[in-house]
């Protein structure tokens, strides 16, 4: 470490570290800036609904509000690769056949 520090003094690169940290924190903050208040609630309810059919984790649903020209786009990405079907949930969701 001592030898490495001799060649790559931490002070030399502090500006590069600053730039990297800023890029990460601002990407995060910008993404949250225009999100309307209902997005987290929408995401939670979507998880509840999808969970009746397949077993998914919270991080497998992404809800984004974007803009493409004049049109606002609500983009919902649900990853179900590897998710197990919920058999009990299916019955509950189709009450007509359960009786």
């Amino acid at each position, binding site marked *: 470490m001592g030898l490495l520090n001799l060649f790559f003094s931490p002070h*030399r690169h*502090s*500006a*590069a570290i*600053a730039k990297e*940290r*800023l890029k990460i924190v601002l990407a995060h*903050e*910008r993404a949250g800036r*225009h999100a309307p208040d209902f997005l987290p609630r929408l995401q939670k309810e979507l998880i509840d609904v999808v969970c009746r059919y397949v077993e998914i984790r919270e991080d497998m649903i992404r809800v984004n509000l974007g803009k493409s020209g004049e049109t606002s786009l609500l983009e919902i990405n649900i990853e179900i690769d590897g998710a197990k079907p919920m058999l009990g949930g299916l019955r509950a969701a189709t009450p007509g056949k359960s009786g």
Partner: protein
Amino acid sequence: MAKVVVITSGKGGVGKTTSAAAFAAGLALRGHKTVVIDFDVGLRNLDLIMGCERRVVFDFINVINGDANLNQALIKDKRNDNLFIFPTSQTRDKDALRREGVDRVLEELKQQFDYIICDSPAGIEHGAITALYFADSAIIVTNPEVSSVRDSDRIIGILASRSRRAERNEPPVELNLLLTRYDPARVAKGEMLTVEDVKEILSIPLLGVIPESESVLRASNTGTPVAFDSDSLAGRAYLDAVARFLGEQREMRFVKPERRNLFRVLFGRA
């Protein structure tokens, strides 16, 4: 058509008031009738930077409340006939800046001036939002330092969503970056974000780079906008920025470390 320009930053201490004073002085030197308004109610400082602190009789809040008329409150600069200072109140609290009142005063100023420079307080509270609300154009004063860049990004977001232009779906507030307290020697050593770094992160057009310079403190000590000191690096950098603001092409100076110059060493000019 008069243009309302807000000088803002989010973070405090980055050089908003210095830049507002220098920019207004630069526009006046170019022949444009310019007024610079202090929006920092309760923490009046533009008067000191402009060197007119002993001439303040009526202020912004007096005019908003109808206790004085505009021409009683405006202070004419003694160095340039095109330049006027509109001081704020030192005693009232910042909620005294009511939006309808500010709107009425700005409309009246637009009849008399080419440029209305609004010196915003720091932060994102009422005073700062009021200062940027009516802007046609914004100059984002940023230091090459992480907290200043982050706060500038926040202010850019607020300008895009909470300005009057945004609320009315009009063309957005024109955004420009002014990078201040830039130290080319430290940038060369990798100790400070470069101009390109900040430009890339904030992705707004660069209006100018003001080098860290002794002349800025000298200017505030004497109450002279630094743009009036055309021998100083910072003064020249502000005049360049004003020229670019007026649509001229100027090469970016003072971004590389200065070579040791015997004349400078002997005579100590910064």
